[in-house]
């Protein structure tokens, strides 16, 4: 299977504080990939680097066979869409104006675009907000709008940083449906999340990121093996060496 993302020895620091420390990762094309880890593990930084928002000091990243560098940057960016946490939207535009702007930038075919946009907005119960200014939307609606827009640009690689945060249960289920359909079309989806049940249920492969390193890579085969005796939650706790410290609140 071809690799959608191939990362070798990736190092990234913020003002000399290392966040990603020689990270290696391979993500097969057409899979739903879950990236989990405690706060500060480097998940959002990794997404930031992949979207081209952050530069990195060392290492090599290949996306769909193209090395992420200045020469290939625009070509790679054209094939990627993302939903960040918090989502990036154009606050002074209406939801529909925002979608149109982004789709124009990504040169999405105009024919049928509005109909598709409306159908997705309706699917996620935000059709009534199509002509409402983005800065007036609730945090859940903002997340859904960012997701709808990312889907509409037909990405080959979709990066979702905590996409289910502040989204209602019904919409989470609908997001899962859309994600599975995108996968069926050949899109690779990378999801970071703290909701392990959703990750467990939705993702093909899962990686546990901790202190800038991939602590475990669980593909469908190894997951089956490991999850015979333990839940994903327990596996996660084992790899990130959780010290529960419950005795510290014994006074309660």
């Amino acid at each position, binding site marked *: 299977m071809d690799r959608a993302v191939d990362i070798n020895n990736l190092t990234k620091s*913020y003002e000399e504080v290392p966040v990603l420390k020689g990270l290696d990762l391979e993500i097969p094309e057409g899979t739903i990939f879950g990236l989990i880890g405690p706060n500060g593990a480097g998940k*959002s930084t990794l997404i*930031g680097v992949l*979207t*081209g*928002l*952050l530069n990195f000091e060392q290492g090599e990243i290949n996306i769909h066979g193209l090395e992420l560098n200045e020469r290939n940057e*625009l*070509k790679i*960016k*054209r094939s*990627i869409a*993302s939903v*960040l946490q*918090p989502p*990036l*939207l*154009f*606050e*002074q*535009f*209406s939801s529909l*104006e925002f979608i149109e*702007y*982004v789709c*124009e*930038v*990504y040169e999405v075919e105009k024919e049928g675009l509005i109909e598709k946009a409306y159908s997705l907005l309706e699917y996620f119960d935000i059709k009534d*907000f199509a*002509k*409402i*200014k983005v800065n*007036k939307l609730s945090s859940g609606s903002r997340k859904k709008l960012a997701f709808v827009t990312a889907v509409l640009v037909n990405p080959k690689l979709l990066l979702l940083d905590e996409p289910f945060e502040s989204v209602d249960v019904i919409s989470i289920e609908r997001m899962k449906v859309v994600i599975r359909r995108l996968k069926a079309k050949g899109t690779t989806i990378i999801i970071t999340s703290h909701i392990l049940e959703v990750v467990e249920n939705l993702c093909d492969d899962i990686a546990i990121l901790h202190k800038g390193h991939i602590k475990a890579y669980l593909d469908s085969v190894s997951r089956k093996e490991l999850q015979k005796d333990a839940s994903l939650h327990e596996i996660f706790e084992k790899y990130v060496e959780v010290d529960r410290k419950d005795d510290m609140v014994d006074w309660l």
Partner: protein
Amino acid sequence: MFYKLLTLNWRIFISNLNRFQLLLTIGYILFLGIMLVNLAGTAIVVVMLDSDPWMQLQLPWLTPEIYAFILLVFANTYWVMHFSFTNMRLMNIEENRKLLGFGFPLNRLAKYLTLIGFFHPVNIIYNLTWLVFLLIQVQEFYQVPVAIMTVSLNYVLIYSIKHRFIRVVEKRFIAVVIGLLILVFVLFQAISFFTSNSAQIFAEMIPQVETVNEFLMWLPGGVLVQTVTVSYGLQMAVIAFFFLTLLTGLIVIDHFNKTKEGLLNPGLRKAEEESSKLWVVLKTILGKNAGKYYFYVMKHPYNRLQVLTLAIIPVVYVPLLLNVDFEIAQTILIPTILAGIPVALLAMGMANMYGYENREFLLHLQFPLNLEKQLKERFLGVILVPLLVFYLITVFELLVIPEIGSPLQIFIANTFFFLMFMLLFVWSSYFQYQKATYSSFSYKHPIIPQKVTFVMSFLIFSMGYLVFVPLNGLEWYRLTIMSTVIVVMGVYLWRHMDVLVNLFKNRVLMRLWTEL
């Protein structure tokens, strides 16, 4: 608890200031002191006008009627000033409402914030001046409490009306702009007519001044004056005091309820459908990037007011100054005011280029478009609109007021003026982007602070004298110097535009990411 709330608000205020802003704030406090002395001083002079023997000697025409007229004009003008400058920014509802989450009782918080809101230093100065102005005119002891209560009622009324007026402005911006333009234009034309025909008007007006006074007495300022100049007796004073207190109390309660509502319902933002024709127009003219940027500049409520001010200035002052028989007014003030308009537009767009879109830049960075190209398009857009206005103004000057100079003079002077300020903004942006932190312009809120606006106005007028003052025989020397400097500045700006783009890319975007 009130003390803690004050400390908290003070800390929020102080923590947002850097050293430069702290200096500006100290300057502002000094300015407020000078303002109080000036206002109260003017009030005292106006009141004492007729009792000073020297004044009576100097102004033989100052009959009691004319004196009353001056007093009433002052009171009503002062009331308009009070209304215009009453400041309502201290409540800081968005920050303070977080206290509700920590268990701060709603009623108490609303009560304290209502009080804090009323005690803005500028508002206190205006009210103190009213008290000085009225209390030195008191004729009977019972007028004192009535005057004090009237001042209080006046203030809470202004506060309340202004609160609602701002909402009206937000909703019906264009109608308000046109209404205000017409109002100010007519008012200033009347003043202009009055000043150029004052002798004749005075001769005709003196016999009618009592009638005018009758009218002025019932305007807001006049009513306040009446509380201390009319003898209405103790019984009436008690009744008036009671009703004034009742009304003041009711309005304060209404404001308290509004504050409470504001604290509880931050989400009461209107969610009406909005069509953005402006966006479509700007996108067509300036393109996707620069169009979006300028759309944001123009959507900002502060800039809408700036544009309103920029529209009022030429409409009001140019005809007014054209009527004044004072050569300097035409040769210096008119071209300076007009040359200041594109500069102000440039300041709006360039003073804080990343404040308008802020985090949204990260999305632009994600786009499959060259970021440098996107940023350069923004810079060009920022220059293009003021440049268009600049050319329109130059053509207007050449066609409508050719007496201010020859076409070459006007063109060179305006170009010099424009480029000089552009260079200033480029430098300012350069230092600002290098720090990518709070500077004189907050990077999160793209508003140019009042203090900076004052400095800018000072610079514009100083530059106006330098550029437009008639030099007669030496004019060619100045034109030569200005032309040379224009070429140097043009080359400098052309060569240094990239520096801004690079700083923006390397410093600002990094900071935006870390704050994500």
